[in-house]
């Protein structure tokens, strides 16, 4: 092979490598640009859910709407990097307070008083100074579904 040909091939590889590097850098940048504030998104979704629930009358229908949003909340947390620890704890407290509320198959509006009672009980505290707004918000959500 001629020297010039070898030189061209080397130059070609180097250019290709540079292009690949640049494009991967751009991808990272675009990811950074699009980086989701999970906590904010989580709070927005809960607020939207609250509005939807207030506009709906049937408890069964409300529960369906709730289930869809609840699944989404779990998914955005799973698909995105971990947030600040305080925010992660807050989101988990909210979701785990709702553990006593059953899924689609078992939900029965007649059992609402029991759901409210169990939800209140799930994250109760004996320490008056230990306030958790996310727990209160989750309890209010169950009350909204059951209204």
């Amino acid at each position, binding site marked *: 092979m001629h020297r010039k040909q070898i030189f061209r091939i080397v130059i070609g590889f180097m250019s290709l490598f540079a292009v690949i590097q640049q494009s991967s850098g751009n991808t990272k940048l675009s990811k950074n640009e699009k980086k989701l504030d999970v906590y904010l998104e989580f709070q927005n979704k809960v607020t939207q859910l609250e509005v939807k629930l207030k506009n709906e009358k049937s408890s069964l229908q409300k529960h369906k709407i709730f289930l869809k949003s609840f*699944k989404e909340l779990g998914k955005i947390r799973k698909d995105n990097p971990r947030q600040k620890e305080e925010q992660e704890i807050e989101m988990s407290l909210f979701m785990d307070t709702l553990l006593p509320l059953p899924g*689609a198959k078992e939900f029965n509006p007649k059992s609402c008083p029991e759901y409210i009672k169990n939800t209140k009980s799930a994250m109760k505290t004996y320490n008056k100074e230990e306030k958790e707004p996310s727990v209160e918000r989750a309890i209010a959500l169950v009350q909204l579904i059951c209204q």
Partner: protein
Amino acid sequence: MGSKQVQFWIFASFCFLSFVSFGWYQLVSNSKITSNHIDLSSTAYEQVIEKLEALTFNLGSMVPKDDLTCNCKMDNKLNLLSFEDPEKCGPERNYLQDELKTFKQIDTNGYFSGSRDYSETAHFLPRKCVLFIMRKFWKDRALSPAEKREADIEFNRTASPEAAREVKDESAYKQDPGLFAKCDKGQNATPERYGHKACVSEDYVNLVYNSLIDVSECLEIPPKFITPKLSNESGLHVNAYGIVNDGGIGQFTVQALLDVAQNFDRFKRKIKASSNSACQRLLAIPGALPNSGKDILSTDAERCHVIATPPNPLRSLIYYGVFYHSLKLNASTAFARSSDDKNPEFESVNQLIQQAGISGFDQEKIKQMLFVMSYNSGPGRPVVFFKEWLKYRIQTLNKFPINKNDFNMNYWPERAQMTAKPGEARLSLMKKNGVPLSLAEYLFAYKNSLYIPAVKAQANMLDKGLGVETCTENKFLEL
């Protein structure tokens, strides 16, 4: 000497010898019948001395004294615990004397207000644990700013220059909080906050100890498990009254009393049906067990319900037993939760433990830590915090695998860290240089909780003062 005199002396000597021989025979034969152990005394003389000492001891007091030794200094006595003398406590600390007398009157058999053979229950929990805790708790007297300033001046008189305290203006000192209550107006009254600890007399200690032992036995609560926790909360004082109106020996709040009320009837039926002598004794004290859960008064204004004596400390301890069992069940259920129908992304404690590579760790001990925390935070929240800590630690497993030190509860933060706001501000003061937080540090940094380390510190104090595992369980709150 006449023959009559000789006869008299022969007869007297015979009588004396007969008496001595009979006494000797009695002592030897008694030792054979009553002693089950091998007598290691080398000579008959030593045996007689021992038997005579034993006889004198038994005649001197019907109840053998139990061990009151300690690794401590109390009332200027080294290595020996002592009760307080009501005559020396003064009127401001003798306010429970009348109530103790009333308890004696209703406790006609002296089950709780009398003394027992404390050597019999020492294996369960020695009485000295209760005495030690009651004496050590908080302060005997709540000091005013002027008294505190005076105490600093007094301290500096004998202290080295390095140890000397800064004597500030009186306005810079705070009045000690009143952490005790008086319930002179009865069981349904509102407690009156009071600053001074009741005199820790032998009668008072016996009442608390007898009640604690019988409730533990009847309701099957391990006394060495609950002792460090009670030491942290009320110091076993019947009238302890916390800042947020948590009252009595069990430091009950509204929510805790509501929980007790919910479960009370089931436990009362069990106590009534039991043939256990400890349960029988509980039933003998009027008011110790209300008629039903509906009779349990839970509001802050009615807190004397769990403070006034009689029937407390018995009632408060029975409630504590009910609370212990219901809380343990709820905490275990929260820990074992494996799925959520509504959320496919739900991760259980067990899954996270596997991911964190700590399935070989003693999970009962981990559960025990969260159970202790749930006394304060409720049964659900500690599990959420623990799961979040596991998720946080899983991120750095490659560089920092989890080890047993991550569960070390011998932790106490510095003053500056305590004053910082929980979260990033507090974390920045913890100077971890990239090393992940232990469970105790995480709970403090983000949830402002030091409850498990506080109970662990009480256990350490008891181990140090009275001997390892004398008042605590083996490896309490540690892996």
